[in-house]
């Protein structure tokens, strides 16, 4: 009985090894973990540190040999995670939820819009596209950060610039620091200026609620339909299984039906 509970128990995480710890910014880092699992970009895992708790983190890679998790230090759990080192054990369960439906989107051009650490799940999409490049047409990336110090995945920017249409903005660049392209202003302004038609394009969007709302408004002005836009929702989660109810948005469970929703399916939902 006791053994059985340990094996078929959806609440119990399993141990994995940290293969790499890579610091992205002062308060952001990426872990590479030897978890070998099938997953879609946009799905997430529940990461545990016993004694501290558990947190849902989206997968920002596309490999069957490992997963990468990009984490911003915002609370107890993420700060505790930042103290882990290469070689340490980490407890994980998952992956969970519905990610970006990459197979259904074959044949389209992709517009990826990310704000701050909202770029993390989109990084999973970028890696996926790299592994399946012929399935998609143009790839247009918009990435917005508060200031140059907040830019994550800096080491990939040169390659992305070569392979795709990339635009990075910073809200403010007070000291005129290094910044890719040097663009200053909200990402939504860059989006507004961009010459985009909605022909055979889908938008994958992740970022703070206000940034997602403004982006959607701009996209609709440019002729995009609600069912061409996919957003990733953030909610408080405990179980990640669809029973604790914290992540419910109206009748939908973010952990189960989301976190990626096609916008026409949840557009009537406000902050509820």
């Amino acid at each position: 009985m006791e053994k059985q509970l340990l094996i078929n128990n959806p609440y119990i995480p399993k141990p994995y090894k940290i293969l790499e710890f890579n610091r992205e910014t002062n308060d952001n880092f990426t872990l590479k973990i030897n978890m070998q699992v099938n997953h879609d970009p946009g799905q997430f895992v529940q990461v545990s540190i016993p004694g501290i708790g558990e947190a849902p983190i989206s997968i920002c890679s596309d490999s069957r040999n490992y997963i990468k998790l990009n984490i911003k230090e915002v609370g107890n759990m993420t700060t505790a995670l930042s103290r882990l080192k290469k070689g340490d054990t980490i407890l994980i369960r998952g992956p969970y939820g519905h990610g970006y439906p990459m197979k259904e989107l074959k044949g389209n051009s992709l517009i990826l819009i990310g704000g701050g650490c909202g770029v993390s799940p989109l990084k999973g999409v970028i890696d996926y596209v790299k592994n399946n490049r012929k399935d998609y047409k143009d790839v247009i990336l918009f990435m917005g950060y508060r200031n140059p110090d907040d830019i994550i995945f800096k080491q990939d920017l040169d390659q992305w610039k070569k392979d795709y249409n990339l635009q990075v903005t910073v809200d403010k660049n007070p000291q005129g620091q290094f910044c890719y392209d040097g663009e200053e202003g909200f990402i939504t302004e860059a989006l507004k200026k961009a010459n985009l038609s909605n022909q055979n394009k889908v938008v994958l969007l992740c970022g703070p609620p206000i940034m997602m709302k403004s982006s959607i408004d701009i996209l609709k002005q440019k002729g995009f339909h609600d069912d061409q836009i996919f957003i990733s929702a953030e909610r408080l989660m405990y179980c990640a299984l669809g029973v604790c109810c914290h992540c419910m948005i109206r009748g939908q469970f973010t952990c189960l039906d989301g976190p990626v929703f096609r916008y026409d399916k949840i557009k009537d939902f406000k902050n509820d």
Partner: protein
Amino acid sequence: MGEMEVLKTDKKRLLTFLNKLKANYELIAPVKTDLVRFQKINDINEIYLEKNSYFPVKEYFFKKEETLFSFKGNKIEAPKLETPKRVFFGIRRCDLNGIHHQDKAFELVKDPYYKAARENSFLIGYHCNTAPSPYCFCGSLELVDFYDLMVYDRKDHFLIEIGSKKGEALVKKYKRYFSASDKVITKEEKVIPGADRLDKKDISKFYDNPDWEKGVSQCLSCGACTALCPTCYCFDIKDEVKAKNPKEGERKRSWSSCQVPEFTKVAGDHVFREKREERFKHRIYHQLEYFKEKNGVNLCVGCGRCIQGCPTRIDFVDILNKMEDGKTTANK
């Protein structure tokens, strides 16, 4: 099951039957203490059936707090779950449905803790001849037959309806306490008279009605409604550590409440349902709409406890009944 077999008995034999059960099982039934509550029965005469229990029976299956596992660093140990053989007696139709609905919710995720707590339990219902509280409205909802045995109090005798194979096996084992009967309990007889005060069955068009606010302005966000609800099943998960060694401890889950602001608070202190009205409405819609969308049955069973137990007596049934069509706050 199609037509359910019915047996007959009298008070003396029924009590003897319960006494026999008590000898072989843990018998849990309503007892009048400060309030009426389900308790382990020591003396059969403690059983109190005049009113429904103030607290639902859910805490025996979905525990207020339970350990998911214990840990020493990254080493995890699952708890040993042992549930004694239990007979629950005197559960009303609403609360039996509450168990049925919670079974559905926890079955979906194959929750081993809930499953273990539900194992080895017999459910013996007690039919309400009249609505036991003025807040009852089970008759407004579509309840299902869900019990091993159901007792119908016919004043000078009792009818026992067999609701499951388990129930059938139980009465067979104690057959001397029952006589055969050709009585059939009709669908109409299962409806409790006077308990149908919720007029609105479909509440989908009232989401943006401004009258929600009117009703909820007295809400204290105390969470009594969700704690007293036989179906509310949300929970938190927290780690508890030993003071001597913070690497050792237990991961526990405990009842939560969607009525407190913290329920939707994410990192950075953003609260998604910040207003009382949003939280109140969320619960009612989960109870009367969302759960049905996914599971085909209303979550609410119409027991009225969330109204009876509310410190400011917010009556969502009354609020809904008075809501007018076409009023909206939506600014689209």
